[in-house]
């Protein structure tokens, strides 16, 4: 073991971990692709929207994307929000001096084109690049917004599940004894509640929302991780640096937070990307079974279900499948690189 590193170049462990992460090329580029995809989907309203970004009508400017004016402002007959596909409105804006700046894809995830000729689901066209789903909503918009919902839901579910799992595992592992014994029995009881039936029952009582699903899935999602964290804590709390911290007079909270937790995070970090992908899949499968979110919420699982009932409409099932596979693959590659980064034996 060398005491001094090579000339002056002393990297902190975090920097070294980042260097190890970068050395896994596949994982590193996956991270970039994933980050870009996430960024794009976060700005989905600016890219794919049925309302224009900017409209100028007879010298009067407006921002319909923020505040959609009634049709009467553009020479329509009704005081309802403007439908920007209405031939009347399109005609008005074709006049000289009037113009509007549309988003790249002029459909939102929930907008319907009431003036469309083809029956739904409609095949790809200039207006709907990937066609429409069985209700007539644009597939590109549906996928973009659906990806965002899936990822954000997965982030939330992973965060809550990890926090609960670490907390439960830490308490049991650190204090041991009666706390551990009671905790383990409680988990065994909790684990034997059939999760799926609970979801079905709840789905029939309440209108399922993302929040309700998050709460229900979180109630059970932490158990697997807590076992690993508990084992790490059981091991680490007996190590000499923890004894030294106790001899120093640190409180239990300080010892857990500063000494034991940072040294027990390996399983948490390793499982993180896999928890992400399983969270995405959980939402997809619930939506697929019809136990998930209502169809007003864009969801990849609902698209898979539509694809199954409209097998001739290939433009529904294939792109949805591709988005799902890509998202899960990227997360798996990132996970591999993360594991490398936290394996300190890889210099």
């Amino acid at each position, binding site marked *: 073991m060398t*005491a001094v590193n090579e000339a002056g170049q002393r990297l902190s462990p975090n920097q070294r971990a980042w260097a190890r992460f970068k050395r896994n090329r596949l994982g590193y580029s996956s991270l970039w692709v994933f980050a870009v995809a996430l960024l794009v989907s976060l700005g989905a309203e600016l890219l794919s929207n049925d309302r224009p970004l900017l409209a100028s009508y007879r010298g009067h400017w407006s921002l319909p994307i923020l505040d959609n004016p009634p049709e009467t402002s553009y020479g329509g007959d009704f005081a309802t929000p403007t439908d920007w596909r209405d031939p009347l409105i399109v005609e008005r804006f074709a006049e000289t001096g009037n113009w509007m700046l549309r988003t790249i894809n002029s459909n939102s995830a929930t907008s319907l084109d009431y003036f469309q000729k083809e029956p739904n689901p409609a095949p790809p066209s200039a207006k709907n690049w990937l066609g429409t789903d069985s209700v007539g909503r644009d597939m590109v918009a549906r996928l973009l917004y659906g990806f965002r919902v899936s990822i954000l839901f997965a982030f939330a579910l992973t965060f809550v599940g990890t926090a609960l799992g670490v907390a439960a595992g830490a308490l049991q592992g650190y204090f041991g004894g009666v706390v551990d014994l009671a905790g383990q029995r409680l988990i065994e009881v909790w684990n034997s509640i059939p999760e799926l039936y609970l979801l079905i029952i709840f789905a029939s009582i309440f209108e399922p929302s993302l929040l309700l699903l998050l709460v229900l899935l979180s109630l059970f999602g932490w158990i697997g991780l807590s076992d690993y964290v508990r084992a790490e804590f059981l091991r680490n709390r007996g190590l*000499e640096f923890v004894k030294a911290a106790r001899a120093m007079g640190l409180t239990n909270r300080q010892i857990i937070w500063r000494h034991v937790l940072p040294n027990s995070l390996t399983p948490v970090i390793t499982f993180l990307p896999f928890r992400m992908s399983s969270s995405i899949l959980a939402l997809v499968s619930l939506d697929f079974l019809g136990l998930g979110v209502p169809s007003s919420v864009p969801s990849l699982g609902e698209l898979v279900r539509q694809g199954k009932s409209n097998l001739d409409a290939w433009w529904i099932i294939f792109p949805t499948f591709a988005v799902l596979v890509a998202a899960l693959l990227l997360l798996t590659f990132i996970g591999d690189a993360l594991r490398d980064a936290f394996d300190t034996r890889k210099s």
Partner: protein
Amino acid sequence: MSSRDPLLSIERLTVRFGLSRVVDDVSFQISAGEKFALVGESGSGKSISALSILRLVDGAKTEGVIRFAGEDLMAKSERQMRAIRGAEIAMIFQEPMTALNPLYTIGNQIGEILELHEGVRGQAVRERAMDLLATTGIADAGRRIDDYPHQLSGGQRQRALIAMALACRPRLLIADEPTTALDVTLQAQILALLDQLQADMGMALLFITHDLNLVRRYTHRVGVMERGRLVELGVTGEVFSRPQHAYTRRLLDSRPQRQVEPLAADAPVLVEAQDVRVEFITRRAWFSKSSLAAVRDATLTLHRGETLGIVGESGSGKTTLGMALLALQPLAGGRIGIEGQRIDGANRATLRAMRRRVQVVFQDPFASLSPRMTVGQIVGEGVELHLPELSPAQREARVLEMLAEVGLSEAYGIADVLQRYPHEFSGGQRQRIAIARAVVLRPQVLVLDEPTSALDVSVQQQVLVLLSQLQRTYGMSYLFISHDLAVVRAMSHRVLVMKDGVIVEQGEAQALFEAPAHPYTKSLVGAANFA
């Protein structure tokens, strides 16, 4: 092959891992029936040299000539090597628990070698295995042969391992730190056994060790290794009496030397423990418990500025007693007081104030520092807790001053020590960090739990010198826990001897070691046999 030829001859052996030369141009010979030792500190390449004789080093590039009984081992195929390993050249390892397979009985494991190399079958295997176990001094071999490794004691396991190694009557036995993991009294027994077996069977013995006492007592010739190089080679007696190389001299000088200054006659009593009893509860079933007393009726006093040594073998309760004095272990009976103030069962505020006055340094410098904290955080943590009135700048100054005092500063060639992480330091330096963490609080009592056992001999001596310097500077009292009698003798004013949780003897250090009264102390001192 004429009878004069050496049994094993190694010429210009070089072993490389990537770019680093772990063994560099090493040549030596071992004659039949000779006892040869390779001695050196960790990382000196002594184990790798021995393993490369059997061509068991993975992922290394090996150059040079290794001749065994006239044949070139480097030229042999892997298949031919397998016939030599275990049969012609056998090996015993440091840690008998991990060298034995926990899923097979020792009889099976000895039998496996016999079946493999000698084609013995059936009942004959069992009889031979039983003979071998009896030869290595395992009592009741007929019953022990069906035991699994975990059912044997440490010494018995090492004997079983020796029985395995001797199964095919090898001509060369390589013993890699054969006694390091054992208690001193067991060490003496195992070495005596090896000595006797070597004489009976006429095999050559290659010891790999860092233990100079062992080398001097049990070997004919010795080779001293330093950083992959063989720096000195010769007859053991001559090397010890007239060392030629500077490193050998340093190694020989680094045996612990007595550092104790006489204690003031009126030194007040600092720590007083009376009839201390510590029990561990073992749960048999859900509602039936049984308890095991790890420490019984321990009574001791520690004066200001005094070093009290506690010696004993593993399981004697010496560490548990130390933990009880640190109030890290609840007492089942008795009382502990520091300057008259009870610390057992004390409330939180008293306990916290006490924490600053009693600090601890542990054995393993790799386990006692959190790998995810910088040295600055590790040493500064206690200062922040116990001296909250200091500003961050004052705190840092105090930490730096302490680190400089233990020999970790720019003056010693270690730049920005505060920002570094423990894994960037060597074992000795890490132990200095652990000492700094304890002493920076200016404690009155320092519990040293085997502080030098994990260190190389030359580093060990430096750490001992540092500890006595700090004791003189700050007038601390030490509770020095160790199994190493030489170290305890060098450091202590008074010594306690523990066996099975009981203090069997105590007294002034020199007197106790020169004229031990209790039979157990006698056997300990006899086994350790310092010069």
